[in-house]
């Protein structure tokens, strides 16, 4: 399903923000959830988790969900959603009780795609909640072993997926390793996901702004890219999961761009986990902002260009088998 649904209500945003918390068993998710609930004085938070943890906070509602993943697009393996979330959140949002934030904790081995895609696919949910960020907790001591684990053919390495999907990576248990290890872990995470912010947590204590109201799915947010990342050629056409950032100067032809992106995501969407872009379209006074998870994407108008401003477009792809050269020349071919 390659759909670009633009919800007019989405721009006047009183929708409830949703944070998706992923991370392997032992990465400290439950500790983090407890910390967030304890520190969020006066905020009503609903937590949806797959197994009841030890949470007992007055202002929080904890709901147990049994993960139900189903395919949406006549059996396409990447177009999956969480049916249980549609039902549970649907009921929650109908209530008179209003929540300030919804926290969804996934199981350790969960692929974040079905959770994220649920918010793209179900219009009823999309009108009431907005995906704020996918936050992945990474255990500094064990993550490299998980990332290096060789899986049988066709089986995804879930740790790699969780890092690739993240908008925010939170390093935990940094007190158990030395600084050199932390540096090499960060470098390894960067090689997979070059755009997620990385922060650290000690014993579950993290800057709350780093996990709540991140606004990573806020399409207005600029994509801040390290210039070096735009020219990095280390990982050309690589079977491992990497990030590719592209920048082109000038205006893009709308129809050409639509055709290319539509084709790219419908044919390569299984391999492209995340895509983001801020685009200059010919004849438009405003930026166009773009977000995709596998084959599903949204785009909408963003901030206006200043009158004399140099028009540039930036795109980021995170996935497998990414060919920087091909992606770059394809985007350049869309120039007006």
């Amino acid at each position, binding site marked *: *399903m390659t759909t670009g649904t633009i919800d007019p209500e989405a721009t006047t945003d009183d929708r409830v923000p949703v944070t998706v918390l992923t991370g392997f068993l032992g990465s400290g998710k439950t500790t983090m959830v407890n910390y967030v609930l304890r520190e969020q004085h006066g905020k009503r938070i609903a937590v949806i988790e797959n197994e009841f943890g030890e949470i007992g906070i007055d202002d929080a509602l904890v709901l147990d969900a*049994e993960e*139900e993943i*189903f*395919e*949406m*697009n*006549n*059996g396409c393996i990447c177009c999956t*959603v969480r*049916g*249980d979330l*549609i*039902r549970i959140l649907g*009921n929650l949002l*109908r*209530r*008179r009780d209003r929540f300030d934030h919804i926290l969804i904790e996934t199981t350790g081995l969960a692929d974040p795609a079905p959770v994220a895609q649920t918010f793209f*696919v*179900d*219009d*009823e949910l999309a009108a009431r909640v907005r995906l704020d960020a996918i936050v992945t907790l990474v255990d500094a001591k064990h993550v490299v072993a998980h990332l290096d684990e060789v899986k049988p053919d066709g089986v995804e390495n879930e740790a790699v997926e969780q890092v690739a999907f993240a908008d925010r990576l939170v390093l935990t248990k940094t007190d158990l390793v030395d600084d050199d290890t932390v540096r090499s872990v960060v470098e390894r995470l960067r090689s997979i996901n070059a755009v997620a912010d990385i922060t650290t947590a000690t014993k579950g204590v993290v800057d709350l702004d780093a996990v709540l109201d991140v606004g990573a799915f806020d399409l207005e947010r600029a994509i801040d890219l390290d210039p070096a990342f735009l020219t990095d050629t280390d990982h050309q056409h690589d079977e491992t999961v990497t990030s590719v950032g592209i920048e082109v100067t000038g205006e893009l032809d709308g129809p050409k761009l639509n055709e290319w992106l539509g084709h790219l995501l419908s044919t390569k969407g299984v391999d492209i986990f995340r895509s983001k872009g801020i685009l200059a379209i010919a004849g438009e006074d405003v930026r166009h902002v773009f977000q995709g998870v596998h084959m599903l994407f949204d785009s909408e108008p963003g901030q206006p260009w200043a009158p004399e401003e140099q028009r540039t477009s930036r795109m980021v792809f995170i996935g497998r088998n990414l060919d920087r050269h091909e992606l770059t020349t394809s985007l350049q071919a869309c120039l007006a």
Partner: protein
Amino acid sequence: MSTTRSLELTPRWSTAFEDYLTVARFGPDGSRLAAGSLSGEAALLDAETGHRSALAPHEMGVLDLSWSGDGHLAVGGQDNTVRLYAAGSLQPVTLELDRWVTSVAWSPSAPQVAVAYGRSLGVARVDGSSALSFDDHPSTVEAVGWSIDGTRVGAACYGGLHWYQPAEPEATGRVFAWKGSMLSLDVAPGGRWVASGCQDASVHVWRLWSGEDLQMAGYPTKITELAWDPTGRYLAVANPDEITLWDFAGKGPQGTTPLTLAGHEGSIHCLAYCPRTGLLASGGADGLVAVWQPPKRSGPVAAFDHDAEVVSLQWHPDGGALVTGCADGTVRVLDATAH
């Protein structure tokens, strides 16, 4: 079917529940109705006066209720229970289950009720004795329903509609398959067809019992509201702010263009045909209840504005009134007077 020139909707009474009114349904003789809300309140309401008799609450909310033809009532909720009230009784038999009760439906031919809970479809007798349970569906069962003669019971879930014969529980069930999450199950009066709305924005109508699948795809969003007219010829589909009407006469609707009924300014949440007059009522996010007379006219013949989203709707069995339920918890009976 009578020919209605114009119809007036006037409020008879209204009463407030504490939260989102999930469902309100008249009993078979029309003297009372049952209603439940996400606050967990459930009650019987006198159709004339609105006088309320409380039923046992369902903590975290009532999700569905159903009346049998002889006045038994089943109420299911998010507290993992279904309560069965034998006709005339306010003392329920409570069945404790292990999942939310998402849908309940009485058999048209015997005093037994189908109950959707988690991935299971259970069948229970009115005294609460459990007759059967069909488990391990591919996903949570979203809706249950019976064939016209009551010999088969169906479950809508991911992957299609699963059918069973309660009288022969060992017999292999049938599956009307579709790789999508089915959200409803509506057997047409007359029993020729079963319709189901899908999360993937398509409607599937299977011919009973050949299993031939007619599909109506290309809707903007998931299909939650369907209604058959009382003759079983027309299927009304709400999506999102318009109603499309498919004609199943002759070879069926494939390749035909449906009639469109437009007038709502927001998503349509509920549809109900009047079994007596054939009039169609719709309620939506815009607070409007509109009454239509398809296929004769494409504009509404009557309308009534509510202060909140209309989320539940049903005709009185005599066709002279409607009950509406709103997102703010209001239950209202509207007199429908023809001129």
